[in-house]
């Protein structure tokens, strides 16, 4: 059975929409395969605009890993903007992949990567445009199996009506296992139909099939129990962990779009996981343990990637890149290798640490020093102890001053507000800090032409973190704290004009909070919002707080719960959390103890350099910390000259 491209029908529509280039595919390093040459067809979706989704590393990795298999193909699809969606509905053209413009409905699997919960309405829009029934129970054998992945999939309960499976953890290996199961089931003549396929998938390590679990509720609205409905699927689903990153040097051929994207650079993941133990950070909790790529592995990925893409900049990506055991040597040797080639090297936002300035100096050895970003996250020393991201005010000011003294003109500082136990005073300390940074910076650099940008957003408690029990601050609290902070920064104009304040109001965070810690009942809210036009909720121009609050009030009322119940309510130790049957490896007792320690402002050290503190991940998952130093050096090679 061959599947025709929708391109002839789409082309006249593209001529009528904004930025049509995002829909035509043909990116450098894109791959296409004949439909009939393979047994299993994957459509991979990033549920946001192309410009955001294309650079996503996760999707790019799975795209390559799957296309390397002779029995599978993978194509990409992204959220289409409302202008094209309207024309597609009018013309009766379905959601399509950008690679070959084949209809998404024809694929065996639709894998959707959720980096953020605000993409949920875009999944519903894509399913509807594709002509795939919204509810998993209404789908039959002819429809794709909808698989959710990404960090948000660690609590897929709010979208459990709409997805067939959720995959926990690293995707590289599990997509292969899923492909094997689907291929075998199809080859055997699809025995037992869709339910049998899902049951087989539920027995793949890391795959959660919500329909095989029943949730019951207690009189107070909390969950009474979550129980499996079949004996032949595991009662608890554990995450997948890829060990030895050097064996997975993906993406080998990074996609380079013609359209402009949010990251105009190539990225190399230098390690995965983080054990710094920042208590707000879901990524740092669910991706343990730390697994480093070796210096030589990184060196060859940078070389191969630059040759394959022609990018001018390489980002050395991870959750805390300066923590790589060989980062100093890596920075120096890469800077040596690419000196004089107009190739830029960068580290994403880093911890506040003088060493990071040294690193940044090395990477920008002969380039422009425009901006450097640090993420202290908490405004006061006290709140930084609560979140376990300890740095003294003195060290912070000294580090930032060093940056100015080394020629950096602009320093960005990332903060959160609405953290547990936070008061106005904690947030107001951000203003003091910024003022001191500018004063000291002007002195150290001998220039008034320096800037400090304070970027601040509301904290959203996430599943599988010590703060999963915390009360989220209300939108009013967030907005009030942002207001007093703004006033404090503007109090002294002579200094204040060198300080920029970028912030997001508290409303979207409340909805993110509902979707993050929500349970299956929240699915009705998502569906209602989508039906009323909710799309692209991560974009302020498309997000409607009122649409969400009205839908939440009306859809949740029959269950005796409401928006506040999900967000600003503190949970008790014994409450069954919607994601308790999904195992990130973290011991729930350890998480609770860490939460209690947060409240008493006690710190916990990083297990890479101190003894194990029994978070539970390594023994539960059979994994271990993989770090250097390896003692190796980068092999000299002839770089791309330009």
């Amino acid at each position, binding site marked *: 059975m061959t599947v025709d491209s929708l*391109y002839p029908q789409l*082309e*006249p529509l*593209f*001529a*009528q929409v904004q*930025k*049509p*280039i995002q*829909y*035509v*595919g*043909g*990116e*450098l390093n894109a791959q296409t395969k004949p439909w009939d040459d393979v047994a299993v067809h994957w459509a991979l979706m990033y549920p946001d605009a192309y410009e955001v989704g294309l650079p996503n590393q996760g999707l790019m990795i799975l795209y390559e890993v799957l296309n390397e298999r002779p029995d599978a193909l993978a194509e990409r699809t992204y959220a289409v903007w409302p202008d094209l969606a309207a024309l597609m509905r009018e013309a009766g053209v379905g959601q399509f992949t950008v690679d070959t413009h084949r209809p998404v409905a024809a694929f065996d699997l639709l894998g959707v990567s959720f980096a953020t919960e605000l993409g949920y309405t875009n999944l519903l829009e894509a399913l509807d445009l594709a002509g795939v029934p919204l509810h998993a129970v209404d789908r039959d054998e002819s429809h794709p199996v909808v698989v959710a992945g990404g960090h948000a999939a660690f609590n897929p309960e709010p979208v459990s009506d709409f997805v067939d499976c959720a995959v926990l953890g690293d995707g590289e290996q599990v997509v292969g296992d899923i492909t094997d199961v689907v291929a075998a089931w199809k080859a055997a003549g699809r025995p037992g139909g869709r339910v049998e396929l899902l049951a087989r998938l539920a027995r793949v390590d890391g795959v959660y099939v919500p329909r095989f679990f029943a949730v019951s509720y207690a009189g107070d609205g909390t969950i009474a129990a979550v129980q499996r409905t079949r004996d032949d699927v595991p009662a608890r689903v554990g995450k997948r962990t890829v060990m030895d990153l050097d064996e997975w040097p993906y993406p080998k051929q990074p996609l*380079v779009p*013609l*359209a*402009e994207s949010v990251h*105009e650079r190539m990225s190399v993941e230098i390690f995965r996981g983080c054990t710094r133990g920042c208590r707000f950070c879901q990524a740092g909790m669910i991706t343990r343990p730390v697994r480093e790529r070796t210096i030589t592995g990184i060196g060859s990925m940078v070389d191969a990637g630059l*040759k*394959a*893409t*022609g*990018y*001018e900049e390489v980002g050395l990506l991870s959750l805390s890149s300066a923590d790589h055991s060989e980062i100093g040597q890596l920075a120096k040797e890469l800077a040596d290798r690419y000196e*004089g080639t*107009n190739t830029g090297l960068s580290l994403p936002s880093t911890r506040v640490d003088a060493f990071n300035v040294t690193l940044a100096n090395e990477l920008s050895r*002969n*380039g*422009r*020093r425009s901006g450097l970003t640090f993420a202290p996250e908490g405004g006061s020393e006290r709140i930084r102890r609560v979140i376990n991201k300890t740095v003294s005010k003195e060290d912070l000011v000294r580090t930032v001053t060093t940056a100015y003294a080394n*020629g950096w003109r602009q320093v960005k500082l990332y903060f959160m507000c609405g953290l547990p136990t936070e008061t106005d005073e904690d947030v107001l300390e951000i203003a003091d800090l910024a003022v001191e940074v500018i004063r000291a910076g002007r002195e150290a650099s*001998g*220039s008034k032409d320096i800037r400090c940008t304070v970027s601040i957003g509301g904290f959203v408690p996430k599943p599988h973190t010590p703060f999963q029990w915390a009360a989220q601050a209300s939108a009013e609290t967030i907005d009030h704290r942002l207001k007093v902070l703004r006033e404090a920064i503007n109090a002294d104009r002579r200094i204040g004009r060198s300080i920029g304040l970028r912030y997001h109001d508290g409303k979207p965070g409340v909805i993110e909070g509902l979707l993050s810690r929500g349970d299956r009942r929240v699915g009705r809210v998502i569906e209602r919002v989508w039906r009323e036009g909710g799309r692209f909720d991560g974009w302020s121009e498309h997000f409607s707080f009122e649409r969400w609050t009205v839908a939440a009030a009306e859809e949740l009322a029959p269950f005796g719960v409401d928006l506040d119940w999900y967000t600003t309510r503190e949970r008790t130790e014994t409450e069954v959390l919607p994601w308790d049957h999904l195992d990130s490896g973290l011991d729930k007792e350890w998480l609770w103890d860490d939460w209690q320690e947060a409240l008493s402002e006690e710190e916990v050290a990083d297990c890479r350099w101190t003894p194990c503190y029994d978070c539970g991940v390594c023994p539960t998952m059979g994994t271990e910390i993989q770090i250097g130093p390896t003692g190796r050096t980068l092999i000299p090679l002839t770089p*791309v*000259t*330009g």
Partner: protein
Amino acid sequence: MARQPDGPPPPPTVQKLRLRYTKRGPLRFASHRDLARALERALRRAQVPMAFSAGFSPHPKVSYMGAAPTGAASEAEYFEIGLSRRCDPEQVRAALDASLPAGIDVLECVEAGEGAGSLADRIDATRWRVDLPGVDAGELTAAVAELLARDEVMVAKRTKNGTRDVDARAAVVTASVAEEAGCAILQVVVRQLTPTVRPDDVMAALAVVADLHPPLPPRAVREAQGRLDDSGNVADPLGPDRVASSCCQEEHAQV
């Protein structure tokens, strides 16, 4: 103290190459900025020894001639690059072509002739072919005749600063109608004025004079760009460079 880049200034431009490339198939939906990004990345992949501007933010020496609009295909886009080391133009063409996605095809590359003048000065008109599926060729012929009979046809053109009325007729040098496989085709030579009159504006003019409204979006292809000669033809803008370079070769041969 503001930092200055260490080391010597970048090497100077020793050779200028002029290239013609296409925008075909689905890539007609690329904007001029998309194309510029794609070309500059391809130059890096192809390891073309580009000359760079000085400073902390060095830019490769590339200049683009007026790009076809987003949505219009082209057989005749031009750009010029400055190299820091002399290269064989044909080798650069082949390497760059191999590094670009299918649809952006580099068709020609010639060395800028000494004293042969700037490329921009050799381009003042475009020959467009506009396929109009669903439009009757007879109706189109009548509409074109009506357009040519007018002295002035004002159309509203969307610009960055709102809409602006433009005389589309003034830009039209010649216009004729053909038919291929049942599809009406408008062939039109348009003079480059400011603001630019594009195929969309010509279609808008046909709507004004003859109420012509294509049922499907027109598909425009820029077939040629260059200087308008007295007979209304568009001359090859790389012609003078070819003449200059063949002269050079003859001189070399004599030496």
